[in-house]
């Protein structure tokens, strides 16, 4: 018996040692290293650096372009937040009795699996000011008055990129909501229908409560996703014109790899991590509090 216990221990150790070493070495350690680097002025290549206390944090809080970028992130967040009801509607629609539902399900998720760089270029073409397709669509329906420089007007560009993000990621949420809806036992829904519940009551009293956990996940995914928007603005506008479509992650990456200020960039990276963790904890308390209260009633 003792040897079996020993055999078990050896097996656990041998199985986990490499995955754990990789995780610690390439994920956990770098994350902690960001904290240390955030107190230095390291430039990314010199052998030496200075310890500069909170200077990076002070300059981060006074950086207007960074605040502008964070505001841009907020637009992505609210855009995706407003889309949750639409995504829910499509999830309900595609799980209901519907001809060609399978084809529509394939289509709704397709943007999510398409190469992000390729689709960003495709949208650059779509919105391009010369022979762009979007302007052609507007002309075709006699809305020429609405034609703008979609990607170079500082007032508009970030909203256009948010629309691209909605195009790309909404289908993912639809599929998640569909999975949650399909995990509902069918007999509960049928019983409710027999008792005379209409589809709105079915949605409100049976489907919504049971997908609250998935809504919770999608909300968190929205926040995390919105804070980390990177490749759409990077490919389509490089954050421009000026900082009109810059995002927090894009600004952070540029600070490190373009302007060689690894110390300051680490400080921003720490800020992103702190934001994600704080939101995670707060949201967990609020949403779970709500769900639990409803269960008690």
């Amino acid at each position: 018996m003792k040897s079996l216990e020993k055999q078990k221990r050896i097996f656990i150790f041998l199985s986990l040692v490499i995955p754990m070493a990789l995780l610690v070495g390439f994920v956990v350690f770098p994350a902690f290293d960001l904290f240390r680097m955030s107190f230095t002025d390291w430039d990314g290549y010199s052998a030496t650096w200075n310890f500069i206390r909170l200077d990076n944090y002070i300059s981060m809080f006074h950086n207007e372009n960074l605040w502008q970028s964070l505001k841009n992130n907020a637009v992505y967040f609210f855009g995706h937040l407003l889309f949750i009801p639409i995504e829910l509607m499509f999830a309900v629609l595609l799980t209901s009795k519907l001809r060609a539902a399978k084809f529509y399900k394939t289509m709704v998720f397709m943007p999510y699996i398409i190469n992000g760089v390729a689709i960003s270029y495709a949208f650059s073409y779509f919105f391009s000011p010369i022979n762009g397709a979007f302007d052609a669509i507007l002309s075709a329906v006699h809305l020429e008055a609405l034609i703008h420089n979609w990607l170079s007007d500082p007032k508009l560009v970030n909203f256009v990129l948010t629309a691209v993000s909605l195009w790309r990621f909404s289908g993912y949420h639809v599929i998640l909501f569909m999975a949650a809806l399909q995990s509902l036992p069918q007999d509960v829904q049928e019983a409710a229908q027999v008792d005379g519940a209409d589809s709105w009551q079915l949605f409100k009293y049976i489907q919504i409560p049971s997908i609250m956990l998935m809504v919770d996940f999608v909300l968190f995914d929205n926040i995390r996703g919105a804070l980390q928007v990177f490749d759409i603005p990077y490919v389509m506008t490089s954050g421009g014109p000026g900082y009109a479509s810059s995002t927090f992650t894009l600004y952070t990456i540029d600070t490190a790899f373009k302007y060689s200020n690894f110390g300051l960039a680490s400080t921003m990276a720490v800020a992103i991590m702190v934001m994600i963790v704080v939101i995670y904890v707060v949201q967990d308390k609020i949403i779970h509090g709500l769900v639990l209260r409803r269960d008690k009633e």
Partner: protein
Amino acid sequence: MKKSTLLQAVKQLVCIAMVLVVLAPILLTLFAAFKTKADMVNTSPLLLPPFGRITLENFQKVLGDKYLMVGFKNTGAILIVSIFFNVMFGTITAFILERFEFRLKPVILALFFLGMLIPSFVTEIARFKIINGLGLYNTLGAPIVIYVASDLMQLYIYRQFISTIPRSLDESALLDGCSYFGLFVRIILPLLAPATATVIIIKAITIINDMYIPYLYMPKNKLRTLTTFLMNFANAQQGSWQKLAAGIIVIMLPTIVIYVFFQKYILAGVAAGAVKE
């Protein structure tokens, strides 16, 4: 009866509108890829050129680019090696975490959870130094080691799957004198095949589509992947949308093809990752 027919019609209309929105940017890019430079101006962006003027020269230009093959080869190599290790480490880690109790387990679970929560892009600022220090900069080793170490979604899929395998199976195998390793390799691993199919396909799509890691760690021309090939190709075609359009279509195709053929596995795995714990 009449009401439900109307409802069906409205549902169909909404769905068709969705399909149009999804397909529009892709189809319009495809149209552009078939146009000559003159037709980019002469025909509407919403239409194909007249049949006789459809040209394949843009596609020839992309397919004739010697770096496209380089991109295919590198992406393929990264895929095979990363996915092999992802499956190997993913299955065994999930097996241990699902089936065994040991003192360090809470610590290990916490570390994996932390690994999921840590935002990937900004971590590169600190990871860059480590990759450089190991001499992996400008080698295929950089993306491989990062994908294997940091992309952890397979753990959810495997853990969920293993929890559906009855424990009595483990016990009877051990009673029959099977070692723990034998139990894992001969009994558990084969049962995980459907989950592995999901993992392979989702990982393949993620890796093919990833831009940032190859872009950051492998600036060398010989180390182009499909995605960084497109970025270079785009920079070289300044303003020549029809050529770039052909490049976009060529680079989109591999994942679309994978998706169309294996969507069952993809849709099965996507929802499995949606757990906050």
